[in-house]
């Protein structure tokens, strides 16, 4: 005889997600779980309720109510399932069901239970490093019912400082600049971020411990050069040329020709002995200078470039000095969330 696969699929869908690290020790509760696994819902209900009358740990009590919730869901008794899940949420507000492993009926009953209980869940404080006054700590949590939510930071020399007060429902995101009312950064130490939700006579609060440490803000080193830019030589040796010789010939030629041209016709041909002697010296000097390695000449473009580069570096160093002065007056804040001591009530 072939058995239908549907009961096995139903069991698999109804099974809650396993909670690592904790196990059920109570024998009655284990029997109830076994009955549920065998799809014996009636027996699971009886033994589950019996287990609740016994002495259970918080985890086991939540597990017992959860089992009842799943069982009622399997028996299509939604209202009772919701009631059972409400107890689960009250005992373990952070409890979530795995949507991939939970039946839609149980999942919807759990969601309905969440809306009927006032809890603050999934309080998270971001681990961040920032300069005091230039950043903020991200705080997130979920409120299950519309309520007045007051968020405070408590501890150390701070006393109690209110961060936020608002009417909220669902996901809430806050940004806390970690500053005192006078603008100073919060002193280093351990603090608690406390979120309290109040609606009518009902209230719920949860907290998250954080550690705030102070550090010096890194200063910037002064620049000696700009990356990718190097100084250029301010003089350059021009290539050898015949220019000195040519100019010496031109100057001497002008002197000789000028002497001949300007000399008076009444006085006969001009004497070129003196001009020739000095001119020969000039031409000889020009010839030697042509053969010699030319003297380095100032490279105007390079000089202007280096001047520009020096001005840029000086300007940047001035900015860095001002920035460092400002940074030495600042505090680097490091905010780290600590392990949660327990859930809220």
């Amino acid at each position: 005889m072939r058995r239908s696969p549907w009961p096995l699929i139903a069991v698999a869908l109804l099974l809650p997600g396993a909670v690592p690290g904790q196990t059920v020790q109570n024998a009655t509760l284990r029997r109830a779980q076994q009955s549920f696994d065998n799809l014996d819902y009636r027996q699971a209900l009886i033994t589950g309720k019996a287990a609740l009358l016994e002495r259970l740990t918080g985890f086991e009590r939540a597990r017992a109510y959860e089992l009842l919730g799943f069982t009622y869901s399997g028996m299509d008794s939604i209202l009772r399932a919701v009631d059972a899940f409400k107890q689960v949420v009250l005992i373990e507000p952070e409890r979530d069901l795995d949507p991939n492993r939970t039946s839609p009926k149980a999942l919807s009953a759990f969601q309905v239970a969440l809306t009927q209980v006032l809890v603050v869940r999934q309080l998270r404080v971001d681990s961040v490093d920032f300069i005091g006054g230039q950043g903020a700590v991200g705080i997130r949590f979920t409120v299950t019912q519309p309520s007045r939510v007051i968020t405070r930071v408590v501890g150390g020399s701070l006393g109690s400082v209110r961060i936020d007060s608002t009417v909220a429902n669902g996901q809430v995101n806050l940004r806390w600049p970690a500053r005192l009312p006078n603008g100073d950064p919060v002193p280093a130490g351990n603090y608690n971020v406390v979120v309290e939700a109040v609606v009518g006579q009902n209230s719920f609060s949860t907290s998250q411990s954080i550690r705030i440490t102070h550090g010096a803000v890194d200063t910037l080193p002064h620049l000696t050069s700009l990356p990718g830019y190097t100084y250029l030589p301010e003089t350059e040796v021009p290539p050898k040329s015949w220019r000195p010789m040519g100019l010496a010939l031109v100057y001497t030629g002008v002197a000789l020709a000028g002497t001949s041209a300007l000399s008076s016709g009444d006085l006969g041909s001009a004497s070129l002995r003196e001009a020739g002697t000095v001119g020969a010296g000039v031409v000889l000097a020009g010839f030697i200078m042509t053969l010699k390695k030319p003297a380095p000449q100032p490279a105007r473009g390079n000089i202007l470039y280096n001047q520009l580069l020096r001005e840029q570096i000086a300007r940047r160093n001035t900015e860095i000095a001002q920035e460092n002065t400002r940074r030495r007056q600042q505090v680097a804040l490091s905010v780290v969330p600590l392990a949660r001591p327990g859930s809220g009530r």
Partner: protein
Amino acid sequence: MNSRLGGLTVSALATLLLFYPPNRLDAQHFAIGPQVVFGDYREVTANLHYRGGGLGAAATVTWKKFSADVAASKIKYKPEKDGTATREFDASEFDVRLRYYISGPVSAEVGFVNRKADPEFEAQSVGAVAAGARMAYLLGPGVRMGLYGGLLFGPKFSGGGTASALGGALELGLGMTVDALRGRLRFTGDYDFQRITRKTNDGSGAVNVPIQQSLGRVGIAVAF
């Protein structure tokens, strides 16, 4: 005795300057030294033709864009064989130039020239104001050359006569300096050409009596 003492003083001063610490000579703006002078002098006609040589001294001072040259020389001019002149004479010349750097290679010059002939009646003594321009060029490290030209204004002659302001008296020159011993020693060579179209009038009309001199100066100077 006095001239011997003066020579010793000049030699001692030159030696002192040569061994002066180089780091104290970074701003060498003054140079002074002796020169050998040789020249060619003609006057009135090609027959009055003299050549000669002598000694001189020159000093240069530079300050920012300004510089000044002072040159003094004494030449003994002797008549050339192809001329009709019979007596030699001494020409003592004193030149002063003040120069202002304008731009590029160009400088402007003003100054005066004074030349005295001895005996007085063998040649004309001349005094005039000079103005012109100089083009200088750096041939290489420590080697400079310059070309200059100008006019001589208001020339006065011991024998009288005039020269027109424009084109009547001209001056042309070529110069060179070569630095040695890290600029402490300076070899100089200068050429000066003067042509003065002098005119006289004894009542029978204007007569051309030109004067022309070519002067070469080769010397050494100590800079400090």
